[in-house]
């Protein structure tokens, strides 16, 4: 009997034994989870997503954990909503329901900033290919330049579902994408100041002309969906879900559904997505040179997005005879509404009477559409090339 008790008790020490003998990578990832907890709780860095990701990371790295094995909770969540792109698409419905496109409709030309804000995707793509990543991996990494977490996860999973990239890489991409989205207030202002003169930053822009009709606001999502379906059908799920959420909002007749999309659906999808993504961060597979390169290329992509936007703003400023503040170009990324608010605060820092918010919001919503459209076009081109 004594032998049985000792044998039973010895199994309680297996976890500690594993950690001490071969659990180095897991211990490091537990440390990473603690850093993410700190950033989310103390620093307020994307807490809605970082906290569940960190907890998933903690759970999956505890010794002999089976949560990411077949039948485990995190594996079940991954199969249920990540491997088929369900969770990112549900989040897109919420994003659409939370976005106000009226500043963009009042100044449609500012949509072009949304194109410039995707330039980083293409530089990161070329660099990733040069560094030896496969075509599918390079495209997935490049999408960090969309500065849009759900888009990155959506594209990466299309490849992961076909066995073209590993699920661990999806986790690394998601963490990199959300980290850089959270770091936009740190990354962008120095670049904005570096690339513009004080005189340019002080430029006051006139308010957008007139109001946008309710009919135009309702027609907008429908037209965008039809256009996307015609030119880039591979991206229709992305754009379709954003525009569904927005159409529900502007129609004004399904307030309960809009409220659910903005709150319950987005919240539940975000929790499950975060946990499932955290569950892919298994130490021995996650801690590789590839992960470090993903983070480095992601940073290059976000920096390039900002530079391209501000440079387009400077060109526009020159062409318009000094009527466009180049800072607005920095808002052409998908991080909404933080990029627009940054432009507003940066503009006011140099000229207290400057109100760039509406222009920046237009560029920022243009960035949202631009990122989904860039992903849609990339996927359609890849299908044409036989990669997808």
């Amino acid at each position, binding site marked *: 009997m004594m032998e049985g008790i000792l044998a039973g008790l010895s199994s309680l020490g297996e976890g500690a034994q594993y950690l001490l003998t071969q659990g180095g990578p897991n211990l490091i990832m537990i440390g990473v989870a603690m850093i993410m907890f700190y950033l989310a709780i103390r620093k307020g860095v994307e807490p809605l997503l970082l906290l569940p990701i960190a907890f998933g990371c903690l759970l999956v790295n505890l010794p002999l954990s089976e949560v990411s094995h077949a039948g485990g909770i995190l594996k079940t969540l991954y199969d249920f909503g990540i491997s088929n792109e369900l969770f990112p698409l549900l989040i897109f419905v919420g994003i659409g329901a939370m976005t106000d496109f009226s500043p*963009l*409709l*009042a100044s*449609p*030309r500012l*949509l*072009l900033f*949304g*194109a410039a804000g*995707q*330039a980083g*995707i*293409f530089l990161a*793509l*070329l660099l990733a*290919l*040069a560094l030896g990543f496969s*075509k599918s991996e*390079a*495209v997935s990494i490049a999408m960090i330049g969309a500065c849009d977490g759900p888009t990155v996860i959506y594209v990466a999973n299309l490849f992961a579902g076909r066995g073209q990239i590993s699920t661990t890489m999806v986790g690394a991409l998601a963490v990199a994408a959300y980290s850089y989205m959270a770091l936009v207030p740190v990354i962008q202002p120095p670049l904005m100041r570096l690339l513009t003169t004080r005189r340019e930053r002080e430029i006051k822009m006139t308010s957008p002309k*007139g*109001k*946008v*009709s*309710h*009919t*135009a606001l309702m*027609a*907008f999502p429908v*037209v*965008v969906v039809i*256009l996307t379906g015609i*030119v*880039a059908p591979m991206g229709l799920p992305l754009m379709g879900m954003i525009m569904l959420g927005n159409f529900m909002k502007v*129609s*004004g*007749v399904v307030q309960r559904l809009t409220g659910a999309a903005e709150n319950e659906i987005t919240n539940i999808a975000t929790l499950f997505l975060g946990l499932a993504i955290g569950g892919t961060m298994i130490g021995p597979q996650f801690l590789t040179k590839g992960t470090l390169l993903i983070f480095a290329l992601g940073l290059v992509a976000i920096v390039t997005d900002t530079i391209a936007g501000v440079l387009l703003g400077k060109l526009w400023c020159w062409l318009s005879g000094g009527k466009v503040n180049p800072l607005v170009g920095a808002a052409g990324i998908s991080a909404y509404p933080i990029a627009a608010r940054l432009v507003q605060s940066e503009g006011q820092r140099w000229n207290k009477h400057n109100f760039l918010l509406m222009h920046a919001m237009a560029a920022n919503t*243009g960035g949202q*559409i*631009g990122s989904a*459209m*860039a992903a849609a*076009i*990339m996927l359609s*081109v*890849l299908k044409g*090339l036989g990669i997808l």
Partner: protein
Amino acid sequence: MNETALFGITLLIAGLGGTLLVLSLMAVVIYLLTIIFPSKKSHDRETPL
């Protein structure tokens, strides 16, 4: 030119060019929408459907 470089350049031209082209087209469509549906009381619904 090797296959990887060709792939990168193809995606750069088709992807960036395509994004610019489609967003420019979309800007024109939005502009037309605001002309077709101007902000006037007669065109605007004040109450939900």
